[in-house]
Structures are given as structure tokens and as C-alpha cells.
């Protein structure tokens, strides 16, 4: 199928983009990498009358690391992140997640901001952002706004962004020492959206006792969501019994949907197993860095 008619605008800055958004309201859509929007347009499920192509805004294409934080510009392409030594070194969870996202041709176009703004609940990046405690920086008519990831995702494909706001960058906290990570997902084929997945981060002290555990599920409901159950690992050494309890609590906690691929039951059971598996790997990685 072919897309319905629209007019393409190419804002020269984020400010200009916001002006267009203010002018056109919900008639306008931001086009970044286009890897989610254009399939919907080709199927005529999305028919914006104005497209604002910000993919070429060089000011939003950057990776910047400093003492406190790690910032990524909104139109930075995922393939560029994959190749970026800073990402591999400083953001291992993000680095591990990238190859799961689509395929080469997709990652060559997909932007970080686009993936976050699209807010597909089965997508990896929103969950990584959540597990890392990241922040979304947006720009709107009233200036800049910082939104913590756990307040950002509101429902299926819907976020805290106003109609006239656009993502400028995301910020991830610097990775602490003695911190491990893992991303685990079940998808029907390589590169597909996950049936269910989990991105997690575990920190421990010098004795190997867990001091912090965060796990974000994706593919389990309307938004990526932090698993309450993971926090029960704190104070343990993530032994088999502790992990078994987390798995059980996770299965009880999840309230996922059924779709044409798998049932809610499947997601609950497998969610528990993935929690156990991923937290165990993350813990081992955390302890490896203290010895």
C-alpha cells in the first residue's frame, strides 16, 4: 500500500519544529527515522497531513559523556550507538539491547528519540531507559522539560509529551561500579518485537550483597513497567532461593495481555523465568567487577 497525501516540512531547528507543531496540532507528525511511522502511513493507519522531518538536525545527533551523566541526542541513529565505543564502555545495558532491535536496515534509520516517543510497549529502548533510571528532555512552546522515564510512558503508544512537544535528548545516569546488567527477551524470530522481555540492573556491595536491583519488563502491557518483585533481591546474595522467590513474585505481579502470538498465562510464567535468569546474570556480572 501507498501512503495518503501529506506535506513534508523540514524544520531547521527544534524551535522551528515546535512552531510547526503549535501551528498544525495533531495534523502534524514528527518524522525522525520513520521506521515505525512510515509502515503505519503505508498501511494508511496513520494519515498525518504534515510531516516534520527532524532526522537531519545535526544538533540532535550526538553522544556526550561527562562525570554525572550520559546524554544522547534525539536523532542519533541506533547503528551509530552500536558502533560508539563510549556506549559499549559506559552503558553496557544499552549496548547489549541494541542488537535485539529490529535489523541492520532498521537500526540504520531508527533514532533514539523516535523509539522513545513511539512508546511501543514491546520495544527494548523504553525499558532500558526505565531500568537505568533515565530522563527524557523535551522542548515545547514553554521551553525545556525533564521527564523521568518512570513518568513518561502512559499507555500503548502514548507518552507524557504534549502535542506540541518534541524530544531533544535522553540522559542516562553514569554506570556505578559493581553494577551488573542483563537483557533477556523471547521473540518469535530474531529481531521481532518481544513477546516478553526484561532489562535489568543489579548493584552489590563489596560482600556481594545486593544493594539495588531494578528490572523493567517490556511486552507485558500498555507500557514498559518496573517489576516491584526485583527489589526483594536487595539484601540477599541472589542465591537460588532468593531468585526463585523473585520469579514467583514476578509471575504473580504481572498482568499481561493475550494476543495472537501468546497468552497472558505464557507471559506471566515466562516473565518469572526471565526475571530469574536476567537478575542472576546481572548479579554475576556485578560481583565479577568487585573481585
Amino acid at each position, binding site marked *: 500500500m501507498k*501512503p495518503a497525501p*501529506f506535506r513534508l516540512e523540514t524544520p531547521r531547528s527544534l524551535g522551528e519544529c515546535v512552531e510547526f507543531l503549535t501551528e498544525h496540532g495533531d495534523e502534524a507528525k514528527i518524522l525522525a527515522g520513520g521506521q515505525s511511522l*512510515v509502515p503505519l502511513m503505508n498501511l494508511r493507519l496513520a494519515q498525518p497531513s504534515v510531516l516534520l522531518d527532524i532526522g537531519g538536525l545535526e544538533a540532535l545527533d550526538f553522544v556526550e559523556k561527562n562525570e554525572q551523566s550520559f546524554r544522547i541526542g534525539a536523532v542519533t541513529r541506533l547503528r551509530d550507538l552500536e558502533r560508539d565505543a563510549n556506549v559499549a564502555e559506559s552503558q553496557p545495558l544499552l549496548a547489549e539491547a541494541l542488537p535485539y532491535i529490529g535489523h541492520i*536496515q*532498521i537500526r540504520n*534509520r531508527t533514532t533514539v528519540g523516535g523509539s522513545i516517543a513511539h512508546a511501543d510497549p514491546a520495544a527494548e529502548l523504553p525499558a532500558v531507559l526505565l531500568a537505568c533510571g533515565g530522563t527524557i528532555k523535551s522542548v515545547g512552546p514553554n521551553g525545556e522539560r525533564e521527564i523521568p522515564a518512570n513518568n513518561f510512558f502512559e499507555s500503548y503508544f502514548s507518552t507524557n509529551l504534549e502535542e506540541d512537544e518534541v524530544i531533544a535528548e535522553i540522559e542516562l545516569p553514569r554506570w556505578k561500579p559493581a553494577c551488573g546488567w542483563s537483557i533477556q527477551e523471547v521473540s518469535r524470530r530474531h*529481531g521481532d518485537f518481544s513477546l516478553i522481555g526484561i532489562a535489568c540492573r543489579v548493584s552489590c556491595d563489596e560482600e556481594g550483597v545486593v544493594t539495588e536491583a531494578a528490572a523493567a519488563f517490556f511486552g507485558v502491557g500498555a507500557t514498559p513497567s518496573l517489576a516491584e518483585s526485583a527489589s526483594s533481591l536487595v539484601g540477599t546474595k541472589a542465591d537460588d532461593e532468593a531468585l526463585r522467590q523473585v520469579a514467583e513474585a514476578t509471575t504473580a505481579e504481572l498482568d499481561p495481555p493475550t494476543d495472537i502470538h501468546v497468552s497472558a498465562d505464557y507471559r506471566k510464567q515466562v516473565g518469572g523465568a526471565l526475571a530469574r535468569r536476567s537478575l542472576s546474570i546481572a548479579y554475576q556480572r556485578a560481583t565479577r567487577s568487585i573481585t
Partner: protein
Amino acid sequence: MTGTTSIGIRVNGEDFEREVEDRLTLADFLRSELRLTGTHLGCEQGSCGACTVLLDGSAIRSCLVFASQLTGAEVTTVEGLANQADLHPLQSAFIKNDALQCGFCTPGFLLTAVEILNETDHADESTIREAISGNICRCTGYQGIVDAIVEVARSGSER
């Protein structure tokens, strides 16, 4: 409301200036405006990889990009791979390794493979399998395609 845009674009080393409807996909631009019909459309949903071309050196799905976005861009299609009479090493390896039957998916695989070879020095079988997993072939079962790319990667003859 439909818009149009004037673009200047370089395709297979040749410069083109065209006035295009904003909604015209790159794939349709190549096929209908430039009559480069080697870029095939298998789904227009961004799933099958048949329409893969190189955009500024990167393999992308040309059904998910609009020609109107591409002023100043450089595109390589399957028609730009061979050097006149001589086939690109990947093209020869595809023939030799039975990497095609109906041939419809072949251009997309070739262009994806070009990026893999440009990117990696030691592409092994599992790397290649993962790298081409965004392209669908219904005929071959992929083995011949993987073998062909491995062969060229080993020989390093693309450089």
C-alpha cells in the same frame, strides 16, 4: 493536502533533479521515476528487506523513506553494483553458491551484504546470519546466501 518538493539526488553515481510528490517513497521514485526496477517491493511494511538500497552508504529499506527527504543524498541500487561488464564479487558468489532461485529477494540481500562486508573484517557465518535476518527469502533456505557472503568475506575481494 499533498505537497511536492524539488530534490537533487545522486543515484549510482549519476545526479538527478526531480520534482516529486512528498509522499513518493524512495522505492517508487527509483522504480517509476528513474526506471531502476531492480529494487523490488515485497511488502511496503518495512518487513521483507526486498527494497534494501544503500543510502549514503548504509543499507536501508527504501519503502520507509520518502524521496522528498533526500536532497543531497547518495543512493546505490543493485544496478550500481556491477562495474559495466564485470559483476561485483558478491553477485558472482551468489550465482556460484546457488544463492538465488526466483531472484526477487536477491537485490535486497546483495545490498545488505555490501554493508556487512564494509563493516566487518571477519564476518563469520553466525554474524552473517544475524546481519541478513531482516531480509526474507522464500526459495533458498538462506544457506546459499550465507555461503556466498562468507566466501566473499573470506576472500576480502570486495576491497
